[in-house]
């Protein structure tokens, strides 16, 4: 369980995290989502006591991180997979971390096996690919068999096999009752892994809840109609209070009514329909919609309506 209350972090005049309040429950994978520069990594550093918050507090398992004497038995974290000494072997890298928290040496071999690095355990980490470094970082996070796990962008640089491996691992860890908190700037990745989402932009909370909650809080579903009598149908719907937009291809995008209702009106007036469908908002669209105003860097091309 991770709980943040009114978390605030300024670097000079830059506000990196602005009054964040959220909680990450155990037994689920919680995705921490936001555009680049939204404050995800800063928040994770605040959780780990690496940066001191300007205001607010964050606790892990009910305690301030800095008060933990053997923190790795409570929290395992992977912030930056590249943060290793290139001249040190994978085994010694893990051993140095394990020793600092009084974790038995045998555990190093176990986690190396768990992430599939046992054959390169004696190899210097400087020669590792990013994918291997991600595995090494995950091994380090698992050393203390902790109830809380945090990963910053864990699938970056992984091949499809590696991505699938991490997803399976994260879900399994959550199923064991652990708190799993992972950040990403990609909704597509989260929609396949996370049970819950916390979305931030420019340091502030935008939304939090289960996937379904985040999705349903968005703009209502639209109904799409293609009809040779589109103009007539449009006028009829408009009169009944629905918002009708004629698309360049002649089809209608209708909000404020249901597909059933559109169908009934068409039948009652003898109008032919070539297509009647519900356009469900995807998580990706919902994410774009939520973070539209919170993106620091975006190309102008992107500023127009997202292609769905």
């Amino acid at each position, binding site marked *: 369980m991770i709980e943040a209350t009114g978390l605030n972090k300024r670097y000079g005049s830059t506000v990196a995290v602005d009054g964040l309040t959220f909680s990450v429950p155990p037994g689920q994978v919680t995705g921490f989502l936001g555009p680049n520069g939204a404050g995800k990594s800063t928040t994770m550093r605040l959780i780990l006591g*690496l940066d*001191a918050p300007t205001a607010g507090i964050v606790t892990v398992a009910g305690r301030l991180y800095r008060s933990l004497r053997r923190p*790795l038995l409570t*929290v395992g*974290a992977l912030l930056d997979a590249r*943060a290793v000494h290139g001249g040190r*072997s994978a085994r010694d890298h893990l051993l140095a971390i394990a*020793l600092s928290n009084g974790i038995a040496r045998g*555990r190093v071999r176990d986690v190396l096996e768990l992430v599939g690095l046992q054959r390169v355990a004696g190899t210097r980490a400087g020669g590792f690919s990013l994918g291997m470094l991600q595995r090494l970082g995950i091994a380090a996070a698992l050393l203390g*068999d902790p109830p809380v796990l945090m990963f910053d962008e864990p699938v970056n640089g992984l091949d499809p096999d590696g991505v699938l491996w991490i997803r399976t691992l994260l879900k399994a860890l959550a199923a064991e009752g652990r708190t799993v908190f992972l950040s990403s700037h990609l909704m597509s990745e989260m929609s396949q892994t996370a049970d819950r989402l916390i979305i931030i932009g420019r340091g502030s909370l935008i939304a939090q809840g289960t996937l379904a909650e985040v999705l349903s809080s968005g703009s209502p579903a639209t109904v799409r109609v293609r009809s040779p009598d589109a103009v007539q149908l449009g006028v009829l719907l408009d009169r009944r209070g629905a918002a009708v937009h004629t698309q360049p291809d002649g089809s209608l995008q209708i909000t404020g009514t249901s597909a059933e209702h559109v169908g009934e009106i068409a039948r009652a007036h003898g109008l032919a329909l070539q297509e009647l469908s519900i356009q469900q908002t995807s998580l990706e669209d919902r994410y774009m919609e939520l973070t539209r105003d919170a993106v620091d860097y975006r190309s102008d091309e992107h500023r127009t309506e997202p292609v769905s």
Partner: protein
Amino acid sequence: MTAPVRVPDQHVGSLRRLGDVLSSETCKLRSVRFTAWALLAAIASNVGLAALLAVFLPGALSPHDKATIDTTRVSLGGLHLSQVACGLLGVLAISSEYTSGLIRTTFSAVPDRCLVLAAKTLVLAAAVAIVTTASCLAAYFSFELLLTEHHLRTSLADPGVLRAVLGGGFYLTAVALLGLGLGAALRSSAGATATLLGLLLIPPLLLELLPNSWKTAATPYTPLQAGSAIVSTRQDPGSLGPWGGFGLFCAYALLALAAGFILIRRRDA
């Protein structure tokens, strides 16, 4: 699968934690090649230069030089080079963690940052002290062994000789700690290395610009002069004496370490 040892968090005493962090830092120092290279370079420089000087120096000395020369100090001539290796080892013991980002892993494993720096200080000091003191003794003995002019020889029992030889190890250990302090305070390998070399090499050059009387008064207080006083068996008039000079050098190193301890606590990692 072996489960990690679980001792309830609050039951882990301070001494136990220090032991954990010491073994972790020992593992770190031992497991990078640079440590072995730096210490080997220090040994090679100490012993190698002593041997070279023993063979070639006597021929180059005038009778007057031979009467006044401090041969013990000459036998430790390798310190000029080995101090760079030891200082660099001290700098990199912490700055390499900052440049790679590993310091965040270290501080999330041990949130008590002063404990980390204290453990690094102890482990580095022990490793450097053992290796350099032994190599200074080896340097002295090889010098004596290869010296053909018997009347230039000294013995460890002569006044100040044992102190000077062991002092070579103390001096190199203090240089390593000065490097560690600078590395912790500055966080950058290049910046801390440049500062360390600057502190040792620049003051004598700057003093050349001063009037002679000022220069004479200030010279004993420069880090290199103060620190190396401990390896002399003949004191120049106006010098701080072997222990006074070395004490001042230790104060410089402690100042750098104190800056490291203060900044490491206050800064975001």
